[in-house]
């Protein structure tokens, strides 16, 4: 979002003015906000992060940076398109993450430096996911054990994985 005043710098201030019972909203850059005097007490950390995404997607459709898709992808559930996401930075529904998986993957990696969730899991379905994560972690240890030719440990880990996967069924 560009500054309402100079239309050049990104707006980082959101001000609400009430004059003669008229409420007007202003989006200003730091410099113009200071020149205007009264600054709204705003604490929206999300704003600068949205700008980061805007930079990656280059919203506003300026030519060049945004990779043009040959055919726009459409979400079968909510009907929004990848192009809409590229313009607004917002997806239409949770299913969009699957529909636009290929396009989103590099963006998510750029923003977060990772693409797989390792945090909290909803209580429902938590158990099976926890087991899956555990199995994955033991698989990694197994790989390491094989690489170090520690076959005794490897056999032990393999049994452990088998037992856990059996418990899942």
């Amino acid at each position: 979002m560009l500054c309402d005043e100079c239309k050049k710098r990104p707006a980082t201030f959101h001000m609400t003015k009430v004059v003669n019972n008229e409420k007007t909203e202003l989006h200003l850059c730091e410099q113009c906000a200071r020149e205007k005097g009264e600054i709204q007490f705003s604490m929206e950390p999300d704003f600068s992060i949205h700008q980061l995404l805007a930079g990656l997607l280059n919203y506003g459709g300026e030519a060049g940076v945004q990779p043009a898709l040959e055919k726009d992808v459409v979400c079968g559930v909510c009907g929004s398109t990848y192009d809409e996401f590229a313009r607004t930075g917002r997806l239409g529904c949770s299913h969009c993450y699957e529909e636009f998986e290929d396009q989103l993957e590099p963006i998510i990696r750029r923003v977060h430096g990772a693409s797989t969730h390792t945090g909290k899991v909803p209580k429902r379905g938590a158990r099976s996911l926890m087991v899956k994560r555990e199995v994955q972690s033991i698989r990694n240890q197994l790989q390491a054990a094989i690489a170090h030719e520690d076959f005794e440990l490897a056999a032990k880990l393999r049994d452990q994985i088998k037992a856990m996967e059996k418990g899942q069924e």
Partner: protein
Amino acid sequence: MSDATPSAMPRWMDGTGASADIVLSSRVRLARNLEGVPFPHLLDQRQATEVLAATRKAALELNKFGFLGTVRFVPLAEVTPVERQVLVEEHLISPAQAKDVQYKAVILSQAEEVSIMVNEEDHLRIQCLLPGLQLQEAWALASRVDDALEQAMTFAFSESRGYLTACPTNVGTGLRASVMMHLPALVLTNQAARALNSVGQLGLTVRGLYGEGTEAIGNIFQISNQITLGRAEGEIIDHLSAVVAKIIDHERQAAAALLREARDQVEDKVSRALGILSNARIMTSDEAIRLLSDVRLGVNMGILTKVPLKAANELLIMTRPAYLQRLAGRELSPFERDLQRAALIRTKLGVRQTA
């Protein structure tokens, strides 16, 4: 003015919590969306109404857990524009949540340390706001609210991507943790830029509360995590806490250096600030914030002994435009606000009004 102090101020302003001299507040926000429902910006009237109804029901069920006291569900279309702006000034809702309010609501815990925004960018944004440095506590509370809500609704979640949010910058944990810090000594000694620039390189972001970089008005800065995916919530919170602890150290060292090397100048500066605040008849919000920052510094350095930290904190919010208008019970022109603001500050600082 009948009563300068409204009955209830949100708990985060009370000046308690660890390192409360430097850390004003700690906030944790969790973004959650309902499974099988488009994100808020795509909802039609019927769906938006259904989300409101479902969250109202879930809010009522929060009452049975007891840890939030009596929970209020506030449809934002049913409160006045000034009241909505007060909620923004108190940091209980975002500026975006106060706009286009037809299908928006906020759920507030009794002490207002928990506020849940409904139909903002995501269906639910659970916020916990505590005084001082209490990130772990805020995260624990937010997670508890999340668990309680989950008993009434199913959240959109993917095993690989985590909690699914309207914007991929929030996906994964949906967690944004932030700390509001008052760093006057670092700014006075020209060290703020250096101390804060390093933060930017650690996957965190810094914002001036009223400005950017070193020119933040009132020397108030907000530090928050940028990455929400690929790290567990505990890691994000620990990382932010560790960085904040370092900045607190820097600020304390800078304050000690000031006292050692420029005691007279600092005493002069903070005493003048208190003098102006105690006597001015017209006060703009900009000037108020700058002077309150100086007074806070004086309180923390033990120079100003008669001003409670709590009063200085509360004034940062109470001198905001909507808050003043609520106190006055009507809309005020900017000039009327400047008069009201000056009067409120004098009252709050305990200056007897001259007849």
